[in-house]
């Protein structure tokens, strides 16, 4: 019993309360109220997922038909009756060469997902084989003081995910390191706050693309002499700069609006300025700082795709762009797979932040 209570607490803590209802269904602890809960939290969401897929399927089908009709029509007007018949037969046969290019259906997306996974397995096997093959040579090269040979083949979809995660975390850390200290400083001083307010208000709404170009101008010059990976540097700095504003504003607001009672306590205890900041002001503004960080992380993940796409840095963004340029028959469905993966990872990142927020802050409000 005790074990199940802690399990309940942990899942609620992470904002995954619906798992408890699912569990009670299997253990048979469901009463009338629980059954209602079960309907609301499990059945209705699942039904809505099916509804969504159904609508998607029908929408994709009608788009497919429109596209197919158009193709046949075109063949008819340009090449005559015979060509139109050939085209109709070709589309009906499912031949790759003449498939209409439109929104893929759920089934196609699922197929592409499996293809991508298979592709990943192949590349992984490739890598292992490469490592085995070059192991002896590399050991020799290292012993001679040369750089080892690394695998330079095409990255798989899963590799792209990890590259993107790396970029987003680097950007997030940058935002954290810049925004929190500055937020605390401007939160503490009214004068500073009003003097930098215009700057924040102007830079906050600037589009990720413009940030990227700005960062590009600076980093290009700074990394002239080094041969480091400037695409990665540019993209993570842009991600950080785009996403840090929420944390900056929230931190400044949290610090500026600390409960007057706590400030009075700090005064009566005669805490020094450093102690006052670290023992009173920071802990009491922690909930707001974390709200800011949560927004920052989700914004970072959102702009990352656009930035990778433009900066030509590897990752999910460039994956999407390459697939779009590629124009293969399953490119569209691969883009949709990437869309779901991006959404899913964004959701997970938010849950992780929520869990950390609940662990560190005293104000244990449940997540949204």
């Amino acid at each position, binding site marked *: 019993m005790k074990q199940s209570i802690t399990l309940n607490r942990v899942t609620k803590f992470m904002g995954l309360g619906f798992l408890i209802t699912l569990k009670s269904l299997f253990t048979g602890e469901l009463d009338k109220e629980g059954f209602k809960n079960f309907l609301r939290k499990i059945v209705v969401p699942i039904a809505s997922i099916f509804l969504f897929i159904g609508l998607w399927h029908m929408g994709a089908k009608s788009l497919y038909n429109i596209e197919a009709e158009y193709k046949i029509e075109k063949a008819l007007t340009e090449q005559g009756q015979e060509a139109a018949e050939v085209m109709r037969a070709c589309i009906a046969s499912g031949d790759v060469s003449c498939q209409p290019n439109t929104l893929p259906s759920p089934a196609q997306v699922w197929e592409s997902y499996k293809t991508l996974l298979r592709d990943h397995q192949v590349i992984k096997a490739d890598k292992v084989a490469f490592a085995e093959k070059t192991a002896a040579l590399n050991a020799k090269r290292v012993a001679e003081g040369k750089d080892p040979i690394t695998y330079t083949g095409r990255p798989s979809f899963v590799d792209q995910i990890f590259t993107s995660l790396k970029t987003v975390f680097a950007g997030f850390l940058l935002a954290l390191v810049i925004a929190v200290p500055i937020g605390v400083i401007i939160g503490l001083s009214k004068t500073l706050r009003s003097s930098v307010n215009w700057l924040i208000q102007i830079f906050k709404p600037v589009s990720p693309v413009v940030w990227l170009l700005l960062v590009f101008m600076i980093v290009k010059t700074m990394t002239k002499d080094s041969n480091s990976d400037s695409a990665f540097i540019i993209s993570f700095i842009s991600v950080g700069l785009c996403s840090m504003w929420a944390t900056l504003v929230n931190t400044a607001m949290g610090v500026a609006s600390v409960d007057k*009672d*706590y400030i*009075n*306590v700090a*005064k*009566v205890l005669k*805490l020094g300025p450093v*102690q006052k900041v670290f023992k009173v002001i920071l802990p*009491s503004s922690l909930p707001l700082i974390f709200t800011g960080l949560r927004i920052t992380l989700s914004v970072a993940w959102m702009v990352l795709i656009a930035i990778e796409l433009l900066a030509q840095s590897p990752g999910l963004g460039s994956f999407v762009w390459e697939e779009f340029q590629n124009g293969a028959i399953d490119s569209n469905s691969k883009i949709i797979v990437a869309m779901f993966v991006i959404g899913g990872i964004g959701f997970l990142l938010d849950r992780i932040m929520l869990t950390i927020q609940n662990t560190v802050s005293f*104000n244990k409000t449940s997540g949204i």
Partner: protein
Amino acid sequence: MAYLELNNVYKTYGQGNHATNVLSNINLSIEEGEFVAIVGFTGSGKTTLVNLINGLLEPTKGEILFKGEPVVGTSHERGVIFQNYSLLPWLTVGQNVYMAVKEAFPKKSKRELHDIVAEYVEMVSLTPAINKRPKELSGGMRQRVAVARALAMKPEMIIMDEPLGALDALTRGNLQDEILKIWGKEKRTALLITNDVDEGIYMADRIIPLRPGPKATLGPEFKIDIERPRDKTELNDNANFKETRNAIIEYLMDIGNERKSEAQEVFELPDVTPKSFVGRF
């Protein structure tokens, strides 16, 4: 020379036409070791008075002397127990007290500091809850932590701003006894601000009513000549107690009525008769 002296103290919030005179012409002197209570209606400027004495606010006019020196800012010599506990919610009971002790005695070793914390937490009988956070405590327990925090700094004077105002009657009684016990043991000077006349009489040597604001000022003082330790149940039969109590309440009622009559304004209504529309349509 008195231990704490307030001479012609005025406190005004705002400026010019928007100025509110909260306190005007406050004169008060407290001797060392004395327990003085100030009673007044809510909103009469009691908290402002407390904040002036503990140094969180500065008087607009007049001077506040503590041991002959003007009060500038807060000091560890004057411990404050706030009305709303003001515990830091992210620290445990022990940590809340420890933070105060550490500031008050920067030279003591960690071990000594922890001993002091343990001693005062024990004094308010919260040792079992020492690792709990304020959120997990009841109102009475929280206020006891606040008492422990203020006293652990070993201030020479304790200033209490309606410390028991938010508590139920039973807890209130217990805490009154506890505060009195600690005060009796260490004989510090104490200033209690309260809206409860009985509490004032039970605890203090002297009671001074605060005439309600705006322009609040102190009324005539009432001496309480009841021997300590006082017994709450016997107090009800004490002729002296009844007399003082009635006198204070009468005084407060009188100023209450005065204020009401001052506030009375006569609005003259215009003399109108309804128009007759008969026969017009």
